[in-house]
Structure formats: C-alpha cells, structure tokens
C-alpha cells in the first residue's frame, strides 16, 4: 500500500498563500468574516504561519504552510469517541462528517492546529457550489459538498482526487496531486508515496536535511519540510 506524504520546500515558498486559497476552492470550505477571524472561528484547512525571530536589524521571518500532517501516530485518531476520524490503509487520516458528533476532543488533541470546528450554518447560495462537477454530489465517506454546522473538518490530502486518479490509472504525484500542490506557483510542495524509492518525495527527502514540526511530540507526521 502506498503511504502518501508531502514535502514542502521552504526555500521556494514565498508565503503567497495560493495553497490556502486553492484548497478552499477545491473543497468548498466556507469563508469567514472579520468577526469570524477575530474570534478565531474561521475555517482553514491549510494555513500559512509567520514565525519571527530576532531584533532589528537582525530579524528573520519564516513562512510555513501547514496542512494537516496526517500523522502515523495521530493523537486525533486515538481520542475520537465515535470513530469519525480514522487512518486509512494508505496513510490518509479521514474525517467522516456523517459520524462526527462534534465533541471537539480532536481539536484539543491535535498538536498542529489543523482542525477547525464548523460553527455556523452557511447560507446556501454562499456555500453550495453548483459549478463543481456533478460527481461531487455522491454520497460517500467524504463527498458532502456542504457540511452541516457542528462538525469538525480538516485537510484530506484531496483524497477524492487520488481515488479518482487510481481508478483511472493515472500516476499519483505526477499527474494527480492535491489542489495545494497543483496551485503552488513556486512548485514548493510535492506529493507522493513515501515508501516508493522512485517518487519525487523520496528523492527530495534524501537530497537535503529535512525537519518535521513538533518532533518532540513524536507524532510521526508525514509532511516534511526542507529548511532553507
């Protein structure tokens, strides 16, 4: 079974946040309002944080895009009481909206802040995207193009694209990639099978030193960063 992972090259990332916006467009994530952002209610599946260190004039700001890390030892999978979030065989941590009871235990447990709680009923015309291809509206473990309020949502590595790509026999990592990887203008994000020695991600991980975030918690996450 493949083990899907992502490599983000911080040398190339410029902090433009096209990945955040592409993810919102692809997955029908609701936008917020000024109040929502101030109250930290807005929903981000992929966020870009800015970490500053130093004092003038020796200052450095790092811009780090953070999707869901899809950890191999995921704290969120351990604590979900309704088995609404679980690890698929190919390593993707799935969030099943129809089983989620909204207890928010996973938000407390996630070390990367990757999960958001959908706290507001969105207006139908602002949320439902009839322009999306019709096969989005199938019932299944993900495809709820509109999510009800009261459930937790997070990045899914666009597994609808991956599953469709495997069915059509395309190469994942080259022809079929998640939306954030596809839309990065600097080609800083790469997706692929971590267990395959010929994939792009394996090649990148062996070319330079890599780091993972919050290594001290030992979540064995599958999003690697190549520092500058």
């Amino acid at each position, binding site marked *: 079974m493949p083990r899907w992972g992502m490599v983000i090259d911080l040398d190339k990332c410029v*902090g*433009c*946040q096209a990945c*955040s*916006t592409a993810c*919102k*467009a692809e997955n029908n994530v609701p*936008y*917020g*309002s*000024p109040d929502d*952002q101030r109250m930290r209610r*807005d929903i981000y599946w992929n966020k*870009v*944080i*800015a970490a*500053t260190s*130093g*004092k*003038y*004039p020796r*200052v450095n*700001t790092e*811009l780090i895009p953070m999707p869901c890390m899809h950890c191999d030892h995921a704290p969120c999978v351990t604590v979900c009481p309704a088995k609404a979030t679980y690890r698929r065989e190919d390593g993707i941590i799935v969030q099943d909206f129809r089983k989620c009871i909204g207890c928010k235990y996973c938000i407390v447990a996630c070390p990367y802040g990757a999960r958001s709680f959908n706290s507001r009923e969105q207006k139908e015309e602002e949320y439902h995207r009839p322009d999306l291809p019709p096969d989005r509206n199938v019932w299944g473990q993900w495809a709820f193009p509109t999510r009800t309020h009261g459930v937790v949502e997070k990045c899914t590595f666009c597994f609808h694209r991956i599953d469709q790509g495997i069915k059509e026999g395309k190469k994942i990592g080259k022809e079929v990639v998640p939306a954030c990887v596809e839309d990065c203008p600097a080609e800083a994000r790469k997706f692929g099978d971590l267990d395959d020695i010929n994939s792009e991600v394996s090649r990148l991980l062996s070319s330079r030193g890599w780091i993972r975030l919050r290594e001290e918690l030992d979540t064995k996450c599958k999003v690697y960063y190549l520092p500058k």
Partner: protein
Amino acid sequence: MKKGTEKDIDCLPNYKEPKFLGEKEKYPLILLPYQPLMVLENGSQNYPWAQEIFLPMAGVGWETLVEINSETAKTLKLRDGQLVWVESPFKKVKAKVKFSEGVHPGVVAIPSGQGHYSYGKWQKGIGVNPNEIIGVDYDTISGQAAFFNTRVKVYRA
C-alpha cells in the same frame, strides 16, 4: 533644465539629503505606505478569500495594521494591538498598531489596499488608506511623484 529639478547633476554616486514634508521635531517618524503581496497586481480586495490572507507576515486579514518597531513603540508608550492615530501635517487616520521587528526604528509602515469607500461589500469600510494622509509633492531630483516623504506622529487614540 526643467523647472524644479536640481541645477547641477552630479554623475558620480553621491548623497543628497531628502526633503520631507513636516518638521522633524513635530512629526518624528517617516510614513511608509507599502503594498503587500495581495495588492501588487490588481489591488482588488473585494473577495473574502483575499481579505482573509491580506497580511501574511502579520498573520491577520480584514484590517490595516500600523507597523512600528517595538523599541520606538515603547518610547511612544504604546501597547501591542492598541488603536492609534497616525497624524501627518495634512490629515490623520486611526488604525491598530503592531510591533514589528522588521521595520526601521524611524519608520511607520502602513499597508495600502484597504480603506475603500465603496467598491463592493467585502471591502467597503474595512481598514484605512495611508495614501489619504501623504502630501502632494514631487521628488526634487527626478521630478516624479513622491509617496514616501511624509512625516507623521503616532499617538494613542
């Protein structure tokens, strides 16, 4: 020579003191109305997705921040996140202050791109426009419009 430019052009690199609008004693800081990434191409902010990520280096959206060096802000007795007036010899605007290490101690940096009077429901009435308070002047050497030579003072609102 065109009227208003320098009479003697020195063709070797040299330094000429810039001319600022406003006296140094009364308006100690220099205003820098910069353009963040979202404004560079077409500058339209009438999209909620664009407004949410307006200032990635500051990690906020939907508003305008007055960025001051933290040492300068401490001498002005400001607290991070406070509302301040930025006043120039011509006008004044009010916005939230942010302590930023990446700004020169003598400079106040305000992003432009907000402060629209209309232009759509997602940006109407949000933020302030620093270009409202800069003076109308031209560069004494080249004759082009000068945007960055207004002096301001910052105080609590």
